[in-house]
């Protein structure tokens, strides 16, 4: 097996290099034409002249992820939810240590001070990735995954007990994650519920008013573009993903207590 892998790797490196030297740059340019499907998305993603088709979001990727193909992303979130739940189920019934964090735990003072400065900065970047997801590249999952790096750093550099001492406990993370998931569910039926109350036809996962349904999520709030449901989806997905990752890491990295006590 190892020799086969070696052979494949060496062959692909040699072939790739020779391809690069001989052909690439001449015959491997992708076409500069945009395909009609991409053209349709790009034309409607932010287009005030087509109010029944547009999403009011200049970021077409987020528009596709949470509006055009919103149900797909909902099921993706469900998969993530189940993965975290099954991870937690594996660790249930295990007694875990709960110590008071001391100064001698973790890495040196220099590393700790640097982490105290960079930790909030990472969180700020994560929040900007997540909450500007409808304007610039990024979104809830991206921001949440970035924010999840912070608890990992703190666990490695301080200790897992430091986090729970600071209030980042498994219970709170579970609550935050549940708030995120409930929020995603509520946002996906928000316009539908408004339609029911007003007696107008509306659909589940609807965002902006369509030709057959006049109900619409507000896409400008106080002059700030929120692209209807997209901002809310990003916010709740950010909460669910960051808290879910943090929860999994806290559970994994807390040392187990002895069987006797």
């Amino acid at each position, binding site marked *: 097996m190892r020799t086969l892998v070696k052979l494949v790797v060496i062959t692909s490196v040699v072939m790739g290099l020779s391809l690069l030297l001989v052909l690439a*740059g001449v015959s491997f340019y992708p076409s500069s034409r945009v395909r009609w499907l991409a053209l349709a998305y790009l034309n409607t993603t932010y287009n005030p002249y087509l109010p029944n088709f547009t999403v009011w979001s200049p970021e077409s990727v987020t528009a596709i992820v949470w509006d055009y193909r919103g149900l797909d992303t909902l099921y993706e979130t469900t998969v993530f939810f189940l993965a975290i739940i099954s991870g937690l189920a594996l660790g249930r019934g295990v007694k875990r240590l709960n110590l008071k964090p001391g100064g001698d735990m973790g890495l040196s003072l220099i590393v700790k001070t640097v982490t105290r400065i960079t930790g909030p900065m990472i969180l700020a970047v994560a929040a900007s990735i997540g909450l500007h997801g409808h304007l610039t590249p990024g979104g809830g999952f991206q921001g949440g995954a970035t924010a999840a790096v912070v608890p990992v750093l703190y666990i490695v550099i301080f200790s897992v007990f430091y986090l729970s001492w600071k209030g980042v406990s498994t219970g709170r993370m579970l609550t935050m994650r549940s708030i995120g998931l409930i929020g995603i569910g509520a946002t996906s039926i928000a316009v539908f519920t408004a339609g029911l109350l007003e007696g107008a036809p509306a659909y589940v996962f609807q965002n902006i008013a369509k030709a057959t349904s006049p109900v619409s999520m507000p896409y400008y709030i106080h002059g700030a573009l929120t692209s209807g449901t997209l901002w809310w989806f990003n916010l709740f997905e950010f909460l669910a993903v960051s808290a879910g990752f943090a929860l999994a890491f806290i559970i994994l990295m807390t040392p187990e207590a002895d069987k006797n006590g």
Partner: protein
Amino acid sequence: MGLDLLVYGLGALASLLSVIAVYLALEERDLVKAVIYSAVQSVFYSLLFYLFMAPDIVLVYLPVAGGVLPALLLVLISKTERFERE
């Protein structure tokens, strides 16, 4: 044309180097080093995603494949053995 050539050249270089990183990760018997090689491969992949204009994927790939996944693998290695046996 010149800028395009630079982008595709860098992309080709990054993909070749990522293959080498994968090879090193597979060959390495010290699992901690193997995880680091695998993270190096992920960094080359995120460079590729960036060059081919997929910034959304870069933003999710960097923290997951460069931060969360290696950390998870290191925790799991610390609970088993560090060196792969024959």
